């Protein structure tokens, strides 16, 4: 390969190929962001949902849980918890969340413990709204079943 394939050709493949695929990736990303309003139902993004996302982030929930499959793998997937624990009913889900967050940590010996975050009722409601928003996005029917 030393005679027919020169370093110059290799260099051109590197610079040319990288620029071409970078532009292609940028174009596809742009197209994706234009299409996403159809599947992420951003029209339902209320102030409560936005506040809930801040609660989610300020308490580093992703450090134990996954959300749509990303995060830590130590605690259950929460992308679909609105359906798993609330059955798709917002009042029921908020009720569950208020109760669940209050009784942490469960204190069962040897069991993984969820910390007590001392959230206000408003914060827990906002978190529930955020998890509902996440659950209702169209993510190509993932996860495979309700257990996440």
């Amino acid at each position, binding site marked *: 390969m030393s005679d027919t394939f020169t370093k110059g050709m290799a260099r051109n493949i590197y610079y040319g190929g990288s620029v071409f695929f970078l532009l292609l990736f940028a174009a596809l990303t742009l197209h994706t962001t234009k299409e996403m309003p159809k599947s992420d139902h951003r029209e339902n993004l209320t102030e409560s949902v936005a506040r809930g996302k801040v609660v989610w982030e300020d308490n580093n929930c992703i450090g134990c849980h996954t959300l749509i499959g*990303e995060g830590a793998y130590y605690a259950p997937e929460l992308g679909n918890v609105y359906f798993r624990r609330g059955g798709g009913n917002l009042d029921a889900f908020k009720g569950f969340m208020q109760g669940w967050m209050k009784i942490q940590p469960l204190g069962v010996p040897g069991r993984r413990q969820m*910390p007590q975050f001392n959230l206000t009722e408003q914060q827990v409601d906002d978190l529930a709204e955020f998890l509902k928003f996440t659950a209702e996005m169209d993510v190509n029917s993932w996860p495979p079943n309700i257990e996440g």
Partner: protein
Amino acid sequence: MSTLKFQSQSVATPYFVFALVLFAGQIVFGLIMGLQYVVGDFLAGAIPFNVARMVHTNLLIVWLLFGFMGAAYFLVPEESETELYSPKLAIVLFWVFAVAGTLTILGYLLVPYSTLAHITGNEYFPTMGREFLEQPTITKIGIVIVCLGFLFNIGMTILRGRKTVINMVLITGLIGLAVFFLFSFYNPANIALDKLFWWFVVHLWVEGVWELIMGAILAFILIKITGVDREIIEKWLYVIIAMALISGLLGTGHHFFWLATPGYWQWVGSVFSAIEPLPFFAMVLYAFNMVNNRRREHPNKAATLWALGTAVMAFLGAGVWGFLHTLAPVNYYTHGTQITAAHGHMAFYGAYAMIVLTIISYAMPKLRGVGEASSNKAQVIEMWGFWLMTVAMVFITLFLTGAGILQVWLQRIPENGEALNFMATQDKLSIFYWAREAAGVVFLVGLITYLCNFLVDRKAVEKRGEVE
């Protein structure tokens, strides 16, 4: 310091030393987490799992960045054939980064995360609380400043001296690292958009620009230890990083499968990530080829071992274990399971931890004034460290893969109502988690062994110091 070609290369020393200190910290927190997987309430009050994990992953990122910077400070003067533009700036930035990094880790450990978010003003410019990007906004700004100062220093050095292929590939990789990190400041309230652009940092770092940095460091080491013609090594380097970038850019698609994105990503992501193992395979061929055709017998056998090891382990971890679960129909079941954890462990160790340990192995004897290579005894200890850590990592990966397969089988494949729930599944996996923890202890023993090699030549170093 008589063994250095350029005096200013010595600024790499504190970077390498601090990188190894953070590496040790990373492993200790890894062991804590591993135990929390099976003894759920272990240290739950003092170091909750999310804190331990944040420390574990953030230390990893930061020690690798220290390693990359040390590598650049060491190899760029030699490649450019000129002294570093400003050794003083390099030392100042070292202290800025070290102090900011340490304060951030202490913040994670000493106050609740929400308190840390509050006292660092996260409500005014929220960027925290996203996996791997947990650093307070002010730390992120600090990282950007350190990166810019570092790039300026390296860039000016290259401009002043010889512009080799290794230099150019390294600097494009480092610029890419800085540019893509800027996406960590974009945190929209829409979780779908947030996640989409989060990958611009996470994927385009580890499966994009970091590979350029890795390729450049490996090429530098191979030239030094094999004496093979630079032209040949540079041609290979171009081919490998071209493949890496071409596959890696659109390979980002394998993270867009389940993200409120159009369905075409399942095809784009699957096809291009199927190509992603190829550059790593080429790297194995390249490294072994160069070592087999070497024109000199370099006294640093340990560095040669690290160079070959990183090629093989990067191929297995990033290439094979990545490909295992990268096709959309497979990923549908494995996404976010222990399979991901298995892949992550071996890929990060093989590609990035090992390349930094490779350059440290090559550079440290020179930086410490020991000579071309450490004494035979020190190298033997170093190679024991290599094998203990590497074999332990293979087993960590295998046990996590076992856990992941069982997890998919119990929790993901059965229909609603028949599938085991998450916590019940985790109970069934505990045997794998115990085995992983045992392998983790072996890894720590390997790391301690590895670190001991630096003690061996201490007398020689001290003696040299007295003579000079």
